């Protein structure tokens, strides 16, 4: 079987992502359950890359058969990623605003946690 560059890179990226996810578990920043969910996700990516025929049934479901359709779907994917990125940024900004309001409340009541103990 002749492997394309994508078929080599995608499984490697999946492997690195999985190693990172499980390292977060060992550092107690991620739960085992979350790591299992990530494992399923990245394993599916790697499997589809190595065995592309495994998703031929999608051509029946989606009707994507030719390059033109594939281009449209690719751009939809790019748009989805942009929306996802914007949602993430909004979430970050919201969290930052919340942290500021919470700090202010604690400061005004002289009940700020003592960070020097950590």
């Amino acid at each position, binding site marked *: 079987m002749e492997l394309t560059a994508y078929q080599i890179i995608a499984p490697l990226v999946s492997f690195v992502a999985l190693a990172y996810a499980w390292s977060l578990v060992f550092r107690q*920043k*991620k739960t085992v*359950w979350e790591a299992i969910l990530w494992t399923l996700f990245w394993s599916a990516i790697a499997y589809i890359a190595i065995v592309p025929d495994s998703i031929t049934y999608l051509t029946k479901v989606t009707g994507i058969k030719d390059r033109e359709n594939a281009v449209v779907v690719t751009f939809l994917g790019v748009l989805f990623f942009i929306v996802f990125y914007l949602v993430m940024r909004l979430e970050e900004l919201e969290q930052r*605003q*919340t942290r500021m*309001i*919470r700090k202010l409340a604690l400061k005004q*009541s002289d009940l700020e*946690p003592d960070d020097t103990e950590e």
Partner: protein
Amino acid sequence: MEEKRNIIAVIPAYNEASRIAPVIRSANAYADTVLVVADGSTDATESVASDAGAVVLSHVENCGAGAATMTGIEAARSMGATIIITLDADGQHDPHDIPAMLLPILEGTADIVFANRFGQRNKIPLIRRIFNGVGNIITFAVTGKWVADSQCGFKVFGPRAVREVDIRMSGYEFCTEIVREVMQHRWRIAQVPTKVLYSEYTMAKGQSFGLGVKTALKILLRSFLR
């Protein structure tokens, strides 16, 4: 040497001036201090809570129940709390259930105690039962832990949980995050059947379907971003 016990009740409140005073008075009977976090309230919540004997902290803007609860927990830690009770400000939870909720912590059999509104005969509207059921299923899907009433704000944190808890989610989704904390820190849990008092007021203030969907999406998004 046994740690000196300091029980602090944390009540996040948003525009609850008409309901919060009796909750504070009842909670005062079981806690050394009652701490109210007024979450951007535009009514008299702060002054009513203060008059009823609570220590009051104020958010300048409404941030959500999760953010208010974490502010209360951090303030309680600074006040040397060894046990923290969280309960709603609208009178939905009966503070007389606090002794039963404290028992597993005092006996040393649990690090966190969840109230279970479905554990005894309570008059709970069907729509609430459905919302809570969906909340339980989503919580199980993202944490791998089944809790009979994961979305209830009435909880007791034991000394270990008080030290380790770190809530980052601002809104109602913090209830799911606490279950995640249970899994991450491997806390022992207990679930105690409690009373719940639903009224037209609490029904009107509770989560709508739209808010429920938004909460569910946030939980799924955040669990992916971690």
